[in-house]
């Protein structure tokens, strides 16, 4: 989670800000103009950090939105008059945001390598659009003849052609952009973005429509880049297609990482550091003519060293080493408050004729079954029986080839995972799937937030009380009350499993689908989770896959046996134990193996 910058960072930036404010009073045109460039660059790079560092989207086409912002100023500027400052900057924000929205609508459908490539291609597409056509004077670039002004009944309030005024406008824009982004990232909305970066699958399983969140982040970043571009166009009053070029985007990524991605202030340091490095390497009086002639070589080598040596970026030097918080290792036993919780009717789940083919291979064929409410249902079967595929079908992780899934009376067949999650089905994964860098409470807060998740929820306060109750309740049911502030990734495997269940409870899910909740646990931990599950069915329905047969027979009300993708038997533990077909197909085989071993 993004935290407040620590004191050393704050002091560093206060000094930097004081120097920047004082600069035009003591320095001449050249240093001020140079700094204006750097400040604009920093604003641009800052907007990219929202994507790379916060949301985990490596966009290689961010320069395109910067270019859009710059060209917007050209489009709204009359031939021989000045455009209004607000119109010019507003146009930059609007065009940058609009372009980002369109590109993002496609790009955020993809992940990883494909995302990088799609954004790269989109940037190049806009580059060639402005380079090859005569939309704005083609490859030669175009001039904004008169820079934007703000006049009020003839009196000039703000004039971008005055280099001092313009400098302060840019500085103000950077400071404002930082605080706006900081607030955004710390808001519930921003928490979701950070959750997506940490673990997108989990966020989707919690009920978030991650596509819309990513698209919103992409658009906001595009708007801010557009603002930076609009300011950039006002420096020299010249715009060129080169602004869109992928080298620009590459340099921006470099500055984000050089400074330290995901901190927001890091990229600002990165932009300043890069500009200083370039300026020093270029000036023959400092490094000698030989290096000054080939300053790019120096930049490249510095970058190589930076990547290989310090993955944390420059911001890493500024942060204090925080003491490790080692929590109380003894979790309170769960289920201690059985009597305090009322019974509640949970949801039931029904499948009919559910089938799934993978390239002609029948992984699941024609399963019709009912999982009644407020019971623990265990799904068992030999390896490769299709158990995980089956619950993936239930949770919407994969789409069924045929058949239906109903939650109570609602047909959820074919719904995307996040919608099914909101219909009340929460699932855990075979491998522990939490947000390791978030604290236990923050993990649950992310889950609780899904209740009324809306894209535009930027403030915590109105929801705090009910959510805090949901979180407290979930932690106490799961026996993690004492561990709220522990960092999730540092807890034991068993506790992480408990946390997963707590997250599901906090999300308000009625129907819990658990994939091997006992995997990798010692006997004591197993005992703890078994009694937790028995307690939970008072107000939940539980469907689980498990290999530990002793635990299964202890915890389950019904057993469903899958063999080779088919439903072999379903019934109470006693019925299943007595079922000859099951014994032959499954238990018998296991008994044989046991006898040999």
């Amino acid at each position, binding site marked *: 989670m993004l935290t407040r910058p620590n004191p050393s960072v704050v002091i560093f930036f206060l000094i930097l800000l004081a120097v920047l404010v004082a600069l035009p009073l003591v320095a001449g045109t050249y240093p001020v103009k140079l700094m204006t460039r750097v400040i604009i660059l920093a604003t641009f790079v800052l907007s990219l950090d929202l994507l*790379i560092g916060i949301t985990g989207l*490596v966009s*290689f086409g961010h320069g395109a939105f910067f270019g859009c912002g710059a060209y917007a100023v050209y489009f709204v500027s009359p031939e021989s008059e000045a455009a209004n400052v607000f119109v010019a900057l507003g146009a930059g924000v609007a065009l940058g945001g609009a372009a980002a929205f369109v590109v993002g609508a*496609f790009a955020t*459908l*993809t992940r*990883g*390598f*494909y995302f*990088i*490539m*799609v954004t*790269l*291609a*989109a940037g*190049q*597409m806009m580059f*060639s*659009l402005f380079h*090859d*056509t*005569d939309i704005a004077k083609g490859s030669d670039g175009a001039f904004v003849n008169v820079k934007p002004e703000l006049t009020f009944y003839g009196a000039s309030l703000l004039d971008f052609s005055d280099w001092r005024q313009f400098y302060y406008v840019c500085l103000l824009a950077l400071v404002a952009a930082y605080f706006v982004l900081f607030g955004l990232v710390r808001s519930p909305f921003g928490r979701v973005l950070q959750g997506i970066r940490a673990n997108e699958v989990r966020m989707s399983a919690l009920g978030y429509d991650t596509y819309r969140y990513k698209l919103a982040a992409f658009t906001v970043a595009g708007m801010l880049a557009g603002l930076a571009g609009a300011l950039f166009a006002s420096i020299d009053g010249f715009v060129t297609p080169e602004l869109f070029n*992928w080298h620009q985007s*590459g340099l921006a*990524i*470099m500055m984000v*990482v050089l400074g330290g*991605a995901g901190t927001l202030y890091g990229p600002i340091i990165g932009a300043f550091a890069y500009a200083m490095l370039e300026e020093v390497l270029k000036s023959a009086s400092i490094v000698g003519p030989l290096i000054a002639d*080939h300053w*790019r*070589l120096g*930049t*490249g*080598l510095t*970058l*190589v060293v930076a*990547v*290989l040596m310090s*993955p944390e970026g420059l911001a890493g030097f500024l942060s204090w080493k925080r003491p490790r918080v080692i929590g109380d290792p003894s979790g309170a036993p769960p289920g201690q408050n059985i009597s305090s919780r009322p019974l509640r009717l949970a949801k039931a789940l029904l499948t009919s004729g559910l089938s799934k083919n993978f390239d002609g291979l029948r992984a699941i064929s024609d399963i019709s079954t009912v999982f009644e409410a407020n019971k623990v249902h265990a799904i068992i079967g030999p390896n490769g029986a299709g158990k995980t595929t089956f619950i993936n079908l239930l949770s919407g992780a994969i789409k069924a080839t045929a058949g239906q899934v109903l939650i109570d009376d609602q047909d959820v067949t074919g719904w995307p995972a996040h919608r099914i999650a909101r219909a009340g089905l929460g699932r855990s994964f075979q491998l522990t799937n939490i947000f390791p860098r978030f604290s236990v409470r923050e993990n649950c807060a992310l889950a609780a937030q899904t209740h009324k998740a809306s894209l535009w929820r930027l403030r915590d306060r109105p929801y705090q009380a009910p959510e805090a109750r949901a979180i407290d309740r979930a932690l106490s049911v799961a026996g993690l009350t004492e561990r709220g502030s522990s960092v999730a990734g540092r807890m034991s495997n068993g506790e992480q499993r408990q946390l997963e269940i707590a997250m599901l409870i906090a999300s308000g899910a009625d129907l819990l689908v658990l994939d091997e909740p006992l995997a990798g646990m010692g006997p004591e931990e197993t005992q703890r989770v078994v009694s937790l599950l028995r307690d939970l069915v008072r107000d939940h329905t539980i469907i689980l896959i498990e290999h530990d047969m002793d635990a299964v027979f202890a915890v389950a009300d019904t057993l469903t046996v899958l063999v080779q993708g088919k439903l072999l038997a379903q019934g109470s533990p006693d019925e299943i134990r007595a079922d000859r077909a099951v014994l032959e197909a499954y238990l018998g085989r296991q008994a044989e193996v046991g006898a040999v071993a």
Partner: protein
Amino acid sequence: MSLIFIQLLNGLQSGLLIFLAASGLTLVFGILGVINLSHGSFYMLGAYLALTLTGIFGDVFLALAFGIPLAFLCGFLIEFLFIRHLYNRDHLQQVLLTFALILIFNEFQQVVWGSYPHAIPAPSYLADSVRLTEGLSYPVYRLALMAICLALALAMGLVIQKTRVGRLIRAAESNREMVEVLGFDSRMIFRLVFAAGTALAVTAGMLAAPIESAYPGVGDRVLILSFVIVVIGGIGSIRGAFIGSLLIGLADAFGKVFMPQFSSVMIYALMALVLVMRPTGLFGRT
């Protein structure tokens, strides 16, 4: 009519040429898992190597005979110095480090060869044009180029499908861990594959030099197009790269004639279309 025929030939020729570069890229990404932005720089290096070596030996093909081993060596070295640190690192760092390599190679090129474009002569025995039909002639070198690229593509297919090394490469592509468990030194396979990828890009650059000449940034376009092709064809798929290259080559050639201002836009639109229909490319694993 003859215009269409000429553009068909041009499209096939540029498609086959770019296939050499794209296949190197898809191999490196599919097997090493590294996004190599400096691939375009190898193409550029190839063009300039052709300039220097043709100056020495007087013939592009002789230059090629010396250039390819040199490229192989160069790839070996770069893998050892830089790329091997990137395995298992995230995409962001791969993008950054290889981007830094671009800056370094560009400067290297400036220092050694300067910023003026240079023409490279085609071999004198291939300098003529051949009459294909009435009123339609085509440079012989371009035809020879197509034949060479096709032969190389075939040879590559044979090596990958039929030989022991090829089987190892295919195995490493589908399951890296397993290959190591079986006792093969995957580091050596990786180094070999990266060197081969480099050699392919350099070969493409050298072969193209007599047509496009050598100038700074000649590899940029090739890099972006190669990435588009890898995305269209599916990561790691040589067959996909082949189909994708021909598609892009033809789309570009015909786009230049029928809507010259939008030919580049069309290529990216083609990629977007493929991604929407098949998110993992034409021949990618789902």
